[in-house]
């Protein structure tokens, strides 16, 4: 920002501000940022060099790897299901049938309006009691994880898709219909591909949040990553070694996901940025 103005007339700016001209502001910014970066780097270095117990890693790595694989499995399943369901939630939301759009709106209100932790409890503790007789699934934690993450994130994806559809110009539907396409065909061929691009950033953001939301599953004892931290920490009183492994595990999923979203956005470029 400072850079784009500094070329014009620093003197005039200095005169207007009294004491801070753009050039000074720029140096101040660079100086402060460097200081902060240096501080963080030193802190990380200190943790890695002094706090982390490398001898402990071989012992705890297997359980972290198991947790990592489990989290990946839950994420992939819940991601596919929540995006698919979310597309239908979004489509239902823009439906001309008021009962369909009403149900979709209520769904979004509920699942976006209550905490995920609450939803996890409803599925984990609530559902089995509704079963007539003994609940047949013994390891209910992982199914709970997939169900609650899917239901919760389908609401957010649904909102993103609704917004994406709303941003497609009405003329697109008219043009498709005037060529003889039916409503469903026009949605599929013309509106949804454009809505999808509009929604991509928001959906990607939500799916990254889904990855991090798996950490809540520790409260129902699903052996995910935070659960491993708690195990190791309570046995060794060493926080930093398991914390560093947890950070690496999450980032190794979320950073590539961010890249994937960018790639998908670039691919849906259609010859330029704007119409």
């Amino acid at each position: 920002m400072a850079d784009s103005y500094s070329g014009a007339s620093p003197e005039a700016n200095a005169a207007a501000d009294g004491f801070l001209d753009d050039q000074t502001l720029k140096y101040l910014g660079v100086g402060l940022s460097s200081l902060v970066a240096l501080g963080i780097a030193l802190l990380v270095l200190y943790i890695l060099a002094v706090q982390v117990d490398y001898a402990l890693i071989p012992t705890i790595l297997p359980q972290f790897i198991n947790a990592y694989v489990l989290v990946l499995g839950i994420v992939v399943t819940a991601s596919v299901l929540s995006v698919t369901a979310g597309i239908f939630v979004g489509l239902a939301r823009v439906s001309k049938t008021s009962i369909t759009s009403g149900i979709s709106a209520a769904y979004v209100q509920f699942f976006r309006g209550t905490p995920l932790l609450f939803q996890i409890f409803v599925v984990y503790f609530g559902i089995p009691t509704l079963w007539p007789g003994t609940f047949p699934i013994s390891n209910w934690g992982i199914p709970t994880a997939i169900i609650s993450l899917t239901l919760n994130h389908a609401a957010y994806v649904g909102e993103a898709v609704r917004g994406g559809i709303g941003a497609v110009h009405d003329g697109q539907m008219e043009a498709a219909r005037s060529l003889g396409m039916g409503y469903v065909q026009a949605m599929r061929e013309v509106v949804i591909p454009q809505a999808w691009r509009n929604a991509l950033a928001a959906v990607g953001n939500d799916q990254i949040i889904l990855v991090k939301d798996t950490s809540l599953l520790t409260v129902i004892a699903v052996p995910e990553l935070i659960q491993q931290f708690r195990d190791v920490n309570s046995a060794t009183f060493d926080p930093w070694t398991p914390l560093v492994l947890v950070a690496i595990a999450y980032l190794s999923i979320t950073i590539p996901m961010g890249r994937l979203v960018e790639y998908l956005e670039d691919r849906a470029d259609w010859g330029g940025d704007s119409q």
Partner: protein
Amino acid sequence: MSDAIRSDDEGRTDGHALLEFDHVDKYFGETHVLKDVSLDIQNGEVCVVVGPSGSGKSTLLRCANRLEEIQNGEIRLDGRSISDPDADINRLRQRIGMVFQSFNLFPHKTALENVTLAPRKVRGIPEAEARERAEELLADVGLLDQADSYPNQLSGGQQQRVAIARALAMDPKVMLFDEVTSALDPELVGEVLEVMRGLAADGMTMMVVTHEMGFAREVGDRIVLMDEGRLVESGDPESFFEHPETERGEQFLSKIL
């Protein structure tokens, strides 16, 4: 233009006009926007609809392929009702090409894909055949070299010519043009009108809403004047522009010429 613009022939126009508006009334809420409009467009005729803004001319055009519903009267294509709630509108619309003021090309499809989409998906024409036909049409509108460009890589005039090719790809019996040059830079208007002139010369039936009076006079077989939802005057261009029959016609011409 070449024979790429075929006209297809399950339809003969024996005894009736190709496109008929029969005592049409249209309301937007309380507003009465089309008042008892009757108009017959014959096979091969170029009917140009003119009139001040808000006179209902675009609405009338949009009713012709049921982008707007009418409340009274009937609209027929080749004797078959378009306005009947039970009409197979998707089928009828394939026979009615529409070109919009704002082009409405599909931005996620190349020019060629814009033209092949409906033939492939609606008609089920094989890809190769649809492509060949689309290339003929793009060549006709002078854009074969832009076949693989996306709409936002094209100028407004080029986009509108692709939009015309897209509509022609369904082999329509009649083409509707809704102020197709109004959103264009002045220097791009000519290339679009040129394509329309070629279509008219090839015998395409056309209903054209426009403010381009030069074009109306030169290409139109008939000029229809609308005002406040009514069809106030209808005649051949010569008599309409030289000696309008109505006072409203005279007023309109004195303002625009």
